[in-house]
């Protein structure tokens, strides 16, 4: 969940990324590919991948707070959590994109840019991991529109806790996989990660609906009979 001011800051960062990507693509002889410092040719669309990722994350965080059914005291920890995550994420990806663009300009650099970009990527992943690690500490609140409806004070926090567990394990696996996987594997790993993410989201939705039904049933059975 993020407030309007954080959303505007993120939109500014995303706009900067888009402007940088468009400028770099326009300056290329061949618009489809660009060459980075180690001579490797990468698709130009990759430059638009960073703002797209930011827009997805910021949009999801903003949308999460739209239908919140809770008082301000409960939402405040979520807002500060969302602020640090969204601005850190957008800022990190902007830096990463900047490193990629600088590397493609052909300047002679005294340092290895690919090592810097790998380090930045790792830092970003650790930042996201720490943010997800903190989610179960935040107060549970119901949403006006959510699959499965209300989860109540028992199943809501449980859902949030186990979901955070699963996402942390998934992220650690992805990070470990990326560090261990041979470089020759390249972008093929992205397909598997995407498939695993889709499965994770589907499982999360199904489980939320199941818990929502369970909570509704418990409410019905607990109601005194006339």
């Amino acid at each position, binding site marked *: 969940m993020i407030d309007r001011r954080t959303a505007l800051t993120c939109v500014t960062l995303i706009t900067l990324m888009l402007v940088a990507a468009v400028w770099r693509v326009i300056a290329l002889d061949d618009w489809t590919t660009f060459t980075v410092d180690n001579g490797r040719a990468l698709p130009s669309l990759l430059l638009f991948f960073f703002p797209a990722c930011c827009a997805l994350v910021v949009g999801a965080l903003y949308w999460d707070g739209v239908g919140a059914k809770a008082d301000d005291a409960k939402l405040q920890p979520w807002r500060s959590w969302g602020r640090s995550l969204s601005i850190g994420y957008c800022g990190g990806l902007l830096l990463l994109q900047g490193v990629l663009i600088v590397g493609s300009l052909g300047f002679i650099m005294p340092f290895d840019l690919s090592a810097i970009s790998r380090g930045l990527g790792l830092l970003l992943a650790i930042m996201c991991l720490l943010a*997800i*690690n903190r*989610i*179960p*500490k935040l107060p549970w609140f119901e949403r006006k529109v959510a699959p499965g409806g209300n989860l109540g*004070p028992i199943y809501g*926090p449980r859902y949030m*806790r186990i979901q955070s*567990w699963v996402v942390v394990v998934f992220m650690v696996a992805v990070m470990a996989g990326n560090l261990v996987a041979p470089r020759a594997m390249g972008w093929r790993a992205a397909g598997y990660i995407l498939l695993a993410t889709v499965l994770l989201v589907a499982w999360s939705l199904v489980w939320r609906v199941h818990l929502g039904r369970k909570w509704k049933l418990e409410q019905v059975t607990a109601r005194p009979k006339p």
Partner: protein
Amino acid sequence: MFKALSDPTRRRILQLLRQRPMTAGQLAEHFDCAKPTLSAHFSVLREADLVESEKVGTSITYSLKLSVLEDALLSFAETVGVGVRSGERLKPATRRVK
């Protein structure tokens, strides 16, 4: 946080709270120790930011506030048996509230 997780009674409180939020009275039913001792355990857990308390009427309801890492440490301490003397038997933490 490590101090809070090193005590078996406090770990049992956290395990009970994993099932659902409970009042101090409901939690006390699972332990043989005196209420002031339990209150001291609750305050240690509160100070470590592992539980959250909410006063509803005359009773205080406790709910879990564990991060993923703290949850993993709790499970690890429980598996290894940190702070449990050899031969000491504990009541199962999964007992349901009547």
